[in-house]
């Protein structure tokens, strides 16, 4: 099953490589990983998407917690949460296809950021599944490139991941 693990980690050089190294050394897979500083500049927030059986995920969270730089973590899959990912897609367009593409973009609530006679750059946010659905809805041949941020997430309600 897919798990979104949210990690508060010391904002130190090498902290990211400790997490990445742990995954490769222990053979866990990382589907995506995002990291940036938080409102407290001494802390970074990392969102890691991984898949595995309950046993594997349990080991992953224990091993992450063992890293000295990791301050706190939660598995967002354990409770109601919101997941968002940003995607930008560059698509070939022609006179004939432009309208169709625009209406698909509207259905998915995307935005067109850049237009040339032969291309669009489309911005879209949503769950990773929604972004997958969008790329599936567009003819594969027309996609020039896709760039995705990887998922980030936050829990619903007033509880938060902080010190």
């Amino acid at each position, binding site marked *: 099953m897919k798990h979104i693990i949210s990690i508060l980690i010391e904002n130190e050089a090498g902290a990211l490589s400790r997490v990445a190294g742990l995954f490769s050394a222990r053979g866990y897979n990382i589907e995506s990983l995002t990291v940036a500083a938080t409102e407290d500049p001494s802390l970074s927030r990392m969102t890691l998407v991984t898949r595995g059986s309950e046993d594997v995920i349990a080991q992953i969270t224990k091993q992450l917690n063992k890293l000295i730089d*990791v301050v706190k973590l939660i598995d967002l899959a354990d409770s109601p949460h919101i997941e968002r990912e940003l995607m930008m897609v560059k698509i070939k367009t022609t006179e004939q296809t432009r309208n169709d593409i625009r209406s698909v973009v509207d259905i998915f609530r995307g935005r067109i950021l850049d237009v040339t006679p032969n291309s669009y750059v489309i911005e879209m946010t949503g769950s990773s599944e929604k972004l997958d659905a969008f790329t599936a809805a567009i003819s594969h041949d027309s996609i020039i490139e896709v760039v995705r941020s990887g998922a980030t997430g936050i829990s619903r309600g007033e509880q938060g991941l902080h010190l």
Partner: protein
Amino acid sequence: MELSGAQILLQSLADEGVEYIFGYPGGAVLHIYDAIFQQEAVKHILVRHEQGATHAADGYARATGKPGVVLVTSGPGATNAVTGIATAYMDSIPMVVISGQVSSPVIGSDAFQEVDMVGITRPCVKHNFLVKDVTKLAETIKKAFYVATTGRPGPVVVDIPKDITAPNILVPYKYPKKVSLRSYNPVVNVAKEQIKAAVELLLSANKPMIYAGGGVVLGEASSELTEFTRHLGYPITNTLMGLGAYPATDKQFVGMLGMHGTYEANMAMHESDVIIAIGARFDDRVTGKLDEFCPYAKIIHIDIDPASISKTIKKIAIPIVGDVKPVLKQLLECLKDSKKKPNKKALETWWQQIDEWRAVQSLEYDRSSDLIKPQFVIEQLYQVTKGDAYVTSDVGQHQMWAAQYYHFDKPRRWINSGGLGTMGFGLPAAIGVKLAFPDADVACVTGEASIQMCIQELSTALQFKTPVKIINLNNRYMGMVRQWQEFSYECRYSHSYMDTIPDFVKLAEAYGHVGIRIDKPEEVRPALEQAFAMKDRTVFLDIMTDRTENVYPMIEAGKGHHDMKLRVALGTSTDRELA
């Protein structure tokens, strides 16, 4: 007080109570060596290879419980230390390794003797630091010791660029009394309910087993374990790392378990209905085939590291995350308060069964052989040292025989590399132990292949007057490898022997020590007595043992505990494949 970085480092080590650092100089640590020259509090032991420094510090740590301290230069000095760091990591040994680094401004430029030590050691340390600011040095050293020695212990590397230790930059020095890291909290409290549940399960057992490991030694909980075990009257087995945590000569001790454990220990594990694992990590050498591991047992697992619980064996009935010493005290208290008592009748039947397994005498060997049996040598060593020596070992068959035939009654007496299985560990470790306990008997049980991996430390032993006794079980084979090749590769002995083996007697003499070669069984005892009588000499006993002796019993790869290979027939082994 204003000090340079190098002085701060030395003063911090002194304030931390460090007696010895094991090290080797080089460009990046010259400022530090200059500071060492100008102080007396911390004694420096100059090894002959950085791997030796790490193993010596490790041996010191295992024998004393105090962290071992290492100092190496950047680049090759640092990489030479990696094997020893990984060795300490796998066995959870507290150690602080100071490595020199190239000056901060040139880091990343492929400077002379630059290597990314923080990157290289990341997967085999508990934590590591790169010091970027001399005003943070003392605090970083304090943190390093704090992390290395608390919770599940382990090695910590502190990488110090050369400019940080420069003599012309002076900053105020104060060694912090305490440090805390907001991201690291090793103290855990155990819920009463868990203790109660564990006691209830323990008392419901008909075929109980206590399986205790290195965590009991690391957690200084031997006396608690002994009291707990005697109170219950249950059988107890120890892992290789746990030997000495419970007195081996006690009647409740059924021997080591696992791949080369006793028949009774493994059979009892297999048949048991309730197992309490105490500071042990269900290593694959212990469990054998996972699907067949202890099929009837409900398991209680005490470990300070939550990640050790349900890592390999998933079905843990009662996990207890906590420090073994207070947890055992709590368990014992709860047991004493409990109205329920162990099931006497069931226990009697259980012990009868165990005694039947004991009667198989799985450790018996051919005592009438004309050849020197390695098991006999260890038995003699045990007798000559009255069971009270510190025994270090290398890796191979000799290690298993030392574990099986030297009956350790006290913790921290058996010093070996279990998790990484590092050949070359034994001799430098023995030097570290001897420095810690100059009056104790220290023996290094080794093999002719292993000893050659750190033989250069014989020179260190002379310089620093650490008269250890080297018991070389010389079977002219990498015996452990040969044994696997005999069992699993139809005796194709691919590169498991050396066509040239040095004359160890001459070699020992060349290093300034005493060398004795022993060819006959009847020479073993007198030679051992002679060696241990030479209190101030390092003695190398080169003992020609039966070449083809194997370690029994054995659980072969992929087999379960009840599926052991026993010594088939007690007869003189022949040089069948050599003839």
